[in-house]
């Protein structure tokens, strides 16, 4: 049996949203209505929480982590009797992946788009044309100098 990695658990405890992972008593209430679990036997929020309690850093934040299959529907947040907010623990784990650089590249592209232009979807000549045709005003410019300040501590 593997030893519990307390160092990783401390890391999770100090990441916003990860604080309550230790309160999970493995009841499985999060699993029954989880759409990702319903459609994929490999995804199981109770098992993700068990790995978190054991501090299994590689399983959760390695390249093949199952956490990216969460649909972010927040049903587990509704169901959990311990207020663990499993989806928030999963998002905290994703934050740790970003720190380590083990996140999927597609996710980074979307974030880079916000860093570059302040939006997840970039304005194109087609989007401008469509707005004009519908009688809408031009898209307002995002003050990027302000936004960039906020990315740094």
């Amino acid at each position: 049996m593997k030893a519990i990695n307390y160092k990783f658990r401390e890391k999770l405890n100090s990441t916003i949203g990860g604080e309550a992972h230790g309160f999970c008593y493995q009841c499985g209430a999060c699993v029954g209505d989880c759409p990702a679990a319903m459609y994929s036997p490999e995804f199981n929020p109770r098992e993700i929480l068990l790995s978190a309690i054991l501090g299994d850093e590689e399983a959760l934040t390695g390249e093949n982590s199952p956490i990216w299959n969460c649909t972010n529907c927040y049903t587990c947040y509704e169901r959990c009797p311990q207020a663990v907010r499993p989806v928030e623990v999963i998002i905290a784990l994703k934050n740790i992946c970003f720190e380590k650089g083990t996140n999927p590249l597609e996710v980074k592209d979307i974030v880079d788009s916000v860093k570059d232009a302040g939006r997840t979807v970039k304005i194109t000549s087609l989007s401008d044309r469509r707005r004009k045709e519908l009688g809408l005003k031009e898209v307002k410019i995002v003050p990027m100098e302000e936004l960039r300040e906020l990315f740094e501590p």
Partner: protein
Amino acid sequence: MKYAPFFGCMITVKYPQMEAAVRRTAEKLGMELVDLEGFSCCPDPIFFKATDKLIWLTIAARNICIAEEAGLDLITMCSGCTATLCEANYHLSREPELREKVNKRLKKIGKEYKGTISVRHIVTVLRDDLGIEKVKKSVKRPLNNIKVGIHYGCHLLKPSEIMRVDDPDSPTILENLFGAIGAQVIHHEKQVLCCGKACMSEAIPEKMTYDVLTSLKKSGADCMGLICPTCFDEFDLGQIKLSRKLKQDLTIPILYYFQFLGLAQGLSPHDVGLHLHKTKTDEIVKKLAS
């Protein structure tokens, strides 16, 4: 009543027909939309939140600050923007330590989050501020012969502790709003299933989309009605792709609630941008005329 609209990225850039529908219908309801300067992406509650929650909260707080400075409540038209801005507003108004961290960053750009305004999805405003009766009174052409299957989406309702909109397991808000414009609401088995858009796997959302579409078809609905551009993104193009892949006709028109409302208020299909949808909406337009 005055509100500051927050249209976000998806609607503004990808689905401006939704913005056109909101602006035109809100005017008929006597809502005054005051456009404020300087909003950015909310930022998105899935991928951006997954990178760094503190930066996510800070950028959300900056958007909220803009509305605070104007002294106006924010209304959102996208369930994603609703999730981000409501969650940020909820946590920052209750957790002083978190607010301090966020305000330390905001100070660099001369802003401070104070927690003085509310953020709500516009459908909540229709139900709670204007009232169903007022929506009903704005209708000139009730959608009597249109059967709508609702897709709720997740982030209008959950987490219910924060959103406080409706019962997330058996909501009624959209039934009542569709009822107000005369549409026949058809219940279907998967109406509160997630659209799956946030999931990084391809297989999971595909199976979910398949189940939602077949559940709708089985119910006898003429179309799907929804309130979120991300769900729309998943189902509009998604149903065409899936129909091709499976060699099965899964197509069904999808409209945003405010497009239905606009049609009921007498606006033309073009006014609410139905021509911009990937899945044809001709059947719905025909039913309007009959």
